[in-house]
Each structure stands twice: as structure tokens, then as C-alpha cells.
């Protein structure tokens, strides 16, 4: 039981670490919150609503995203997209992610 909890905590931290990158990558094209959530879910990355939306606001406050409200189907929706700074950060992060991914794959092979 204790091992399960520890494993869950490690996986939770791992997911928390990769979420900003996944969200930034999805927002090359603008999307509203719920479509982003379902889009990520369809690709195998389920995110809790309580995690995604605060993350979007944080990324926006860091200048990586831009957002605006639009009236669609008689109700307002907030659309998010990458800012110029967000695109630059995403580009650098992708390179770093590839390097890290290779490093970790090698490490995990050694462990096996």
C-alpha cells in the first residue's frame, strides 16, 4: 500500500512536470479550455479540470499565452493561444525534452 502511494506521488509529480509543455504544444492553434481538455484526453493525457485551468492562467500571467473572450452559441468562451514568447519557450523546451527523454531512456535501460 505504501509502495502504491509512493509510486502514485512520483507519477503525479512527473505528470505535473510535463503538463506545461503539453499544454503549450497544443496551443499553437487557439483553443478554448474544454476543447483543449478533450484534445489532450484523446491523445492519452487526462488532466483534471482543477489542474488545467489554473495552469492556463499561470502560463498566461508568465506571458506565454494570450487569451480573449468570445461569444459563441450564445455563451462566452475564453480562447487561448501561444504568444510570441510562448512559441520561443516551446521551441527551446522541445529540444530540451528530446535530450532529457534520450538520457532517461538510457538510464532506464541500465536499470533494467
Amino acid at each position, binding site marked *: 500500500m505504501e509502495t502504491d502511494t509512493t509510486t502514485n506521488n512520483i507519477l503525479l509529480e512527473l505528470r505535473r512536470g510535463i503538463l506545461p509543455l503539453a499544454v503549450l504544444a497544443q496551443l499553437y492553434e487557439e483553443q*478554448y*479550455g*474544454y*476543447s483543449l481538455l478533450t484534445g489532450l484526453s484523446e491523445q492519452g493525457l487526462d488532466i483534471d*479540470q*482543477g489542474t488545467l*485551468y489554473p495552469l492556463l492562467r499561470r502560463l498566461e500571467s508568465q506571458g506565454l499565452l494570450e487569451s480573449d*473572450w468570445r461569444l459563441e452559441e450564445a455563451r*462566452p468562451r475564453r480562447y487561448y493561444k501561444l504568444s510570441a514568447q510562448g512559441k520561443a519557450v516551446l521551441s527551446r523546451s522541445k529540444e530540451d525534452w528530446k535530450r532529457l527523454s534520450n538520457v532517461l531512456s538510457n538510464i532506464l535501460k541500465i536499470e533494467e
Partner: protein
Amino acid sequence: MELINRYIAEVGRHLPEKTRIDIEQEIRSLLEDRLEDHSRKTGKPVDEDMVVEVLKEYSPPPKLAAAYQPERFLIGPKTFPAFMTVVKIVLPIILILAALGFGLQLGRTELDSQDIVSTFTEGISGMIDSIFSALGIIVLVFAILERTLPEFKSKSLDSVVEGEWDPRKLPKPAPSPEKVKFAGLSIEIAITVIALTLFNFYPEIIAVSTRFAGEWRSAPLLSDIFYERYLPWLSLIWGVQIILNVVLISRGRWEPVTTWIYLAVKTATIMLALVILAGPSITALTASDLASFGSLALEQAELIVNIIRQVVRWALIIAVIASGVDIISTAWKQLFKKSSVNVLTTS
């Protein structure tokens, strides 16, 4: 939709006013999207049961609201080490000052035995008040700095963590406080044995003596009350102290049992000193005794006797303060110390 309004209102109640409307609007939009999607997938119209089902997928209102806000703390993790350093410097100083104030109060007032307990209680209460006041002020200052001076954080820790550092400047490890000091304990045993022997078997030596007109004249320094009322208790304390020191030398280190016995001995010393302070004077020497020696006028003799009485009184007050500080410091270390073994195994 009534439930959605209630849910959003409850989330909003936990949000800061500045961002409340915007976040509430966003949550409403998300919930409506989710309901629409759910209705389409199930082929059913949106009803209260469906709203309940969707709301259950979301976090309870306080948890969702908390996710929208940064982690809140009074003193942040970056400034905490600096805060602890200041606390460790300031609190002992406050404690010593409070103990000195307590000592001065004792010295200025004539206490009878009934006043001892109340004065002692007031003194301890004053010390505790001082510590909490000082701690409160330090917390307040750090909390204000944390919120008003962003550069304060960088100066406190970032410069240490991120700046260049010289491994050669690392402090040398402190000697283990648990190891006993053999030389100090040996000297203490010798002095205590001498005092015990002198006071109990040769009290006549503890006197003021002078040679006048070819013959020795002597007057006892301490009163009969001291020898009859206080010396048995003092001898008991000294006896326990000697046994404790012998045990410490044989064991080579402080252990919880020896530490607590040491604290008990110190407490008994304080209590005895307070009783002596509150009781009649323990000095037997009078001005007429001194004047009878022939070399001093009565006025000069009175002055010297007064000085001796004050010296004895102040020696007792200083003993009370020193023992008090020692007790607090030792008890603190005993209660809150971290074993070096634990540190090594947990790091």
C-alpha cells in the same frame, strides 16, 4: 442550473476579489461545455442529475479555488533559513536580558518566604512573555519584508544558493555537545570536595582573622543560621553533584538520565539560593567585631561589613541567574536536539 450558480458562488467566496469575476465566468463556461458534451454523448437533456454528476467530477469549491491561487505562507521557504538564524540569535539574548531583569528585581526587593513563589512565578511568566513578544515581532518583520521587498528574498537565499561559493570557507564541524569535558569535571569535583570538607568540618577557617597586639583575633564570616539551616541542603546538593560528575567521567558522555539529574541539581541550587535570599542574612560578621580588631574605626568597619553582605547577596543572585539560563539552555537542547546519527541516516 441553480446548482451551477451555487457551485460558482461557493468557489467565488474563496477567491480574491480582484480575479473573482473572471474566474467565475471561466468556470461557468467550462461547466456548460462539459454539460453540453455529456448531454450529446448520453443522448439525454441536461437535468439536475446530470449537473450533479458533472459537478462531482470537479473538485469541491474550496479545493478548486485554492488551485487558482499561489501557495500562501507567512514566511516563505526562501526566507525561512534567515528567519531561523535571527530567531536563534535574538531569543537567547532576550532570555538573558529577561533573566537579568528578574535578578535585578530580586536584588532590589526584600523578600520574605511567602513572596518567593509569587516572585519566581512572575519572573518566569515575564520571561515567557518576552520570548513570545520577540518571536511575534520577528515573524511580523519577516512577513512584511517578504511582501514588500522582493529583493530581500534574493539576498537571503538566492545569493547563497546560486552565487559562487568557496568550499574552503565551509565551517569546521562543531565538537559533539554530548561528550563530557574531563578537565572541567575533574576541577569541579576537586573544588566541591574542598568546599564540602571546609564548610562541614573546618567552619572556623571561614572567618576573618587578623593579628593585633601580638595575638590572633578572629570573627566567623557566616552565621549559625547558615550552618544549621542551609548547610545540610547545600551539602546534599554538592554530594549529588560530585556523584554525577564521577558518573559522567566514567561514561564519557552526556545521556538523558545524567542530563535530567544535572537539571534537577541546578533547580535545587536555585531554590536554595532563593530561600537564602528571602531569609535572614547569612553573614555573621558585625562592624563591632571588625572594629574590635583594633585597626579600623567603627564607621570603616560598618562600610566593609555592608560591602561583604552585598557581595554575598549579589553572588547568590548571579548564581540564580546563571543556573536559570543554564537550565533553560540545557533543557532546550535536551528536548529539541537532533542526534548526529539520525541526521546522517536520514540525509
